């Protein structure tokens, strides 16, 4: 293939500068996005339609940005797409495979396409990736016989089969059951030890413990950049719990309050919520808000609490 299949030991793995992308009918998907992605798992959070998938496709050389530049390991994704592709493993938001092909056949072709010429080496990688993704038992099963979760895992497997130094995963847990999600997060955390992962999601929990850094993309712009702790800190002092008699519990607890969760405790309901202004009477502030609450607080502060909440609910 003629390209080094490793990333530089230091410095940004992905350098995004001033990327703007406009679709056909003038729809602006990305608007001046600049981002540097270092080693480890980098999370890209944002509600649906924020432009995450567009950015992923640009990074993966599938789309050409209308403006700006993206470099992967120093290679420009437009001019040196071939070099970039040889470094990538990509799991798109919507993934499946040819229904009549068996799992290992799909992986074999993907590995070969990525330049794994040696059949034996390919076999070893396939076995490894089948093991890592828990698909070993269904290796000879046709794709049409796989469950949705298995197909998703196959997606991860194909992205990993050639052992790429850079993994780009777009909304990887959509449609997965909680157990599969958990498993997936663990996998990503593990993989992030040895490679750079750019993970885009609208589900905050997907970032998991392995996420070193993240960015929030909203309406085509990067609106937040920091660590998960930084994002969680956005909710500091604004998340509270309060217990209400069941008959007083209402959908809307008042202006400036976004309910995060409700737990029924006998005749009472324990409500966890976010206050965009002052805490209501009886509220017990939470000392350590979660990342989700940080994201919600951040989005709420931007007047986008509904978008954030809707996707959390949908997930």
């Amino acid at each position, binding site marked *: *293939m003629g*390209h080094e299949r490793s990333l530089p030991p230091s410095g940004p793995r992905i350098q995004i500068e001033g990327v703007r992308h406009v679709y056909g009918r003038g729809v602006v998907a990305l608007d001046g996005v600049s981002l540097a992605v270092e080693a480890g798992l980098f999370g890209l959070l944002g509600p649906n339609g924020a432009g995450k998938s567009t950015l992923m*496709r640009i990074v*993966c*050389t*599938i789309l*050409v940005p209308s403006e700006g530049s993206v470099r992967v390991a120093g290679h420009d994704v437009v*001019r*040196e*797409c*071939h070099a970039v*592709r*040889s470094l*990538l493993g*990509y*799991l*798109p938001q*919507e*993934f*499946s*495979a*040819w*229904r*009549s*092909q068996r799992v290992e*056949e*799909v992986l*074999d*072709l*993907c590995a*070969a*396409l*990525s*330049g794994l*010429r040696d059949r034996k080496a390919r076999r070893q990688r396939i076995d490894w990736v089948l093991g890592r993704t828990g698909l070993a038992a269904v290796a000879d099963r046709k794709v049409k016989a796989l469950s949705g979760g298995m197909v998703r895992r196959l*997606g991860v497997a*194909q*992205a990993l089969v050639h052992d790429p130094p850079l993994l*780009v995963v777009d909304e990887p847990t959509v449609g997965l059951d909680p157990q599969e999600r958990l498993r997936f997060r663990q996998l990503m955390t593990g993989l992030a030890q040895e490679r750079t992962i750019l993970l885009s999601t609208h589900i905050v929990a997907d970032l998991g413990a392995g996420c070193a850094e993240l960015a929030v993309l909203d309406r085509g712009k990067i609106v937040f950049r920091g660590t998960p702790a930084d994002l969680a800190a956005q909710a500091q002092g604004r998340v509270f719990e309060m217990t209400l008699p069941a008959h007083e519990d209402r959908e809307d607890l008042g202006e400036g309050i976004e309910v995060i969760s409700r737990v029924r405790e006998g005749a009472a309901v324990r409500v966890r919520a976010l206050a965009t202004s002052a805490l209501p009477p009886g509220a017990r502030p939470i000392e350590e808000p979660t990342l989700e609450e940080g994201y919600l607080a951040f989005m709420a502060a931007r007047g986008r609490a509904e978008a954030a909440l809707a996707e959390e609910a949908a997930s």
Partner: protein
Amino acid sequence: MLDWSVVAAVTRAELRATRRLVRYWVFLALAWLFGIGGFLYYSAGLHRSLSAYSATIAQVGGRYFVAIYGGFYILVFLAGVVFLGFDLRTRDERARIAEVLDARPQTNLELVAGRGLGLLLAAWLPLLGAAGMIQAIGWSIGETVEPYSVVEFVVFMALPALAFGIGLAYLSSVLLRSRILVAVANLALLGGAIFGGNYLPVYLSPVVNIHGAFSLGYPSDMVHFDNLGLGALQRLGVLGVGVGLLGLAAALYPRREASSPRARFAVPALLLAGGVAATSYVVRAQWQLVQNLDRARAHHEGRGDSPVPDLDRVQAQLVLEPGRRLALDATLAFRAPATSPLERALWSFNPGLSVTSLTDASGRTLAFRHEAGLLEVDLPEPLAPGASTTLRLTASGAPETDFGYLDAVRNVFAQSSREAQLFVLGYEPSLFRRSFVALMPASRWLPASGPEVGRNDPRRRPRDYFQLELEVELPEGWLPAAVGRREELPQTAEGRSRFRFAPEGPVAEAALLAARFERRAAEIDGVDFEVLFHPAHRQNLDFFEDAAGEIRDWLAERLREARELGLAYPYGALTLAEVPNSLRTYGGGWRMDSALAAPGLLLVRESSFPTARFDVHFRDPRSFADREGGMARAKREWLERFFESDFTGGNVFVNGARNFFSEITGPYGEGAIVLEHVLQDLANRLVTGKRGYFSVHVFGPELNSVVQQVMIRWFLMQGQPGQRSIVDAAIEAIASRPTVWDALMEVPLARLDPWKDPRTALDVLVLKGDAMAQVLLDMLGRQAAGELLADLREAYRGRTFDRAAVAQRFAEVKPELEEWLALWLDRAELPAFAAESAERYRLPDTAEGEPRYQLRVVVRNEAEVAGLVRVEYFQDLGEDRSRSESTDPLLVPARSRLEFALVTPHPVQRVRVRPYISLNRGPFEVELPPLDTGRTVDRKPLALTRVLPWEPPAEDRIVVDDLDAGFRTVEPERRGWRLGGRATPSETDHGLPAAPPFFFRPPDRWSRAEAPQAWGRYRHTFAFVRGGDPERGAIFEAQLPRAGEWELELHVPLAADRRLGEGSWTVEVGEGEPRTLTFDLGASQSGWNSLGTFSLPEGLVRVTLRSDSKARVLVADAVRWRVREAGENTAHAARH
């Protein structure tokens, strides 16, 4: 550059994915069905079962037709490729893996090439299996496919075709992105290619010949792959375009690549350009072939009126280096025409041979020009009329094998494939290959006097007969065949073989064949008879070994009989030699007669006798044990039938009989075409007793219809008395068409211009000329007819005769023949016969008590020209047995009545008049009165033939026949849209399509058929149509001379119990408010059926015939009106 490991991986995946598609297996099954089914049809169905019946059928078989059933396979799979490759990109999008693939580092070309290769293998590997299976099946039934043609199919046909199909499907899939659109576009292009292949001129066909049928020529066991040339280039062109399209699909594949467009498009564009250039080159070469022939023809035509040398003798030494060159050293002794001096000697001479020296008798070098096959030699001084001189010519080179038949009315390369079905008759005028040499006369490997144009028209130019002495030197082991006995000469110092031919008889042309033949020979009645064949085709000669004695006896008898008639075989040796399939079997001129005959030579195509399956019919010797002559006789008879029923120019009886007359002498001038045909036909009948029919003009779009007509006629003949062969059926079906009759009655034979409408002209010759020959034979008898020919042959041996000479000979033999000749040649009118009356009654028994029956028939000839008939009568022998006998030809003068009377020991149950050629166009039945065998009429027995005084026919009845002006049909307006519209009938008969008289599947529009049972003044025809549509009708109109009670009768050619079926017809009588009757088919009878009596005024009366919904057929033959006298009673068949 391609990473082949990536390509291989994609190929494997594609192969796997394709094999898992149901549609792949559907198309594979269809391809196998058509391919293997096609092979089984051609091999087991046709060739194995039927090839032994006819040399024509034998040529259709699995061995040499892989291009056809292999073509089926490829075409089916090309359609399959459309459905397997129409979603190159969209299937990944549908499977939601497109982006995953897009983000991988393989190039688009690697992906597309890998997929293309996978699909190609998915299509091609089973094809290998199919080819293997075909050979295995073929081996098991003794019908293997010619091995080189299998390679051709697998490699040259299939690979480029599939590559093209895949490239096209992928490119359109990338461009259109909708599977339906891609499928429609590709199938339309495929259909367009097939359509174009049928309708484009042959020289343009390489452009659309995607599947490559016959690109590499006609398969052959005798010559193969030593002349790949243009065919292989065409396949490379298709392959180049296919791969180019694939590359273009990769270049346009909707996935971004870093490489420059120039880099992506350059190679596909080059491949496409290369493919197009290769195809264009092939087209150009074929076009040039057409042009070269046209140019040569024009060049020869330009010298058409020049005086032509009259060749006396040719002495030639020929050195052959097959496939490379030949060297000729020829001395030509010739004279100037008797009527004009000769300043330049014009010769036709192969343009591939370059003349190295040309000297006169004194050794002076002569100036000459050799252009487009015309050699013009400036004589040192003009040669006085009739004076003779010699030329010596040396020439060498590779003969141009495309040269020949310049004046042919059809050039297959300029016609569409649909028209040019005569491709199956071979297309190479000569062969000069490493393994086989066939220097046919028309290639002019020996100089022939005069230009080519005009040579085939004896009205314009006499045939030039000469004595030939030929020495041939060729590689050791090779055997030449030419005219006359082959005399082996001492080998050359280099060990090359030498042979000499010096036939006693004159020749007008000579062919030379040479190959490493195997030989079987015998001397039969003083003639060296030999068979030369390819070593691989020994099986049938071995098979007929036990019949060799029978065959020898048969040949000896024919040769002896001919000798006794004064028509001895003239050349000392007769060679039957096998030739490759690609050799053109038909000649030039308007006639394009068989080229499988040359003086002393009979050529047999390898697909004919050498490979026909006689063995399957003689497996069980017990079935021949009780047969007279046993199996040997049966085999000989079988062989006779085989060769006799060759309609592709290989009828050895007809071709062989040429040696006895027209190779030695022939007519020239007015009427020469007719005389040549009649005299040679007479020679055929005398020498071999066989007839033949060969017309390349039927090898066109209508060929299938012609074959169908012949088979129907053959089928109908089976029910008729007498021995009738398939040749008779063919001649009746083809040469007896209404068009031919119309043409025959338009122009006298002597003024027939065959160049205007060669097909019809030939059939006119066959129709009338054969009848003339038959009359000569019947009137003169065999011995006198033979002597007539022998006298002509002897008197004009080696030169031509004119019409006056023929007339004189005729007059010497039988005075009235001279008059007949004038009548045949100069008058287009035909006699018109009708049976006037017939009587039959029982006479008193003989003195020995044997019963006697009297038959008297009066036949009228109502035309202004005399004619000949034979009367055929069938005696009832009892117990359902009958015996048929026939009179000699009876002359019925113009406008006369002939009474024919005879006494028979058995009652005559049927009488049929068989005119030789007349307006009747065929035999007709004589209506006989009922015979009371118990009642004896005491009258004097009468056995005579006499001409009675002319009396006009009694007109007491008014008949409206389907051929009369008062008859017309009503055809409903066509409703709705119909694919392709209605086909224009190839033959119409008095305005209606001509059809065979079949009732089991009546035509769906009014048609006309002939049948002896139909009513007719002269011709016995009827109109018919499928029943059930009351809008269809037939109208008979007549003028009644007076008012009164008129009885109406309807003539039905076959009654209800004879195929008309059930149901009824309605008959409307009169106009305005007509009276409507129902004619019950169940109650009808063959012949006239009374429909009742009608009180009608004077003037026009109309009868309209329609069918009800149940009637299968509506037949309109004739109606008859008869005025009823008071008190008459009659039964009738209709309900009012």
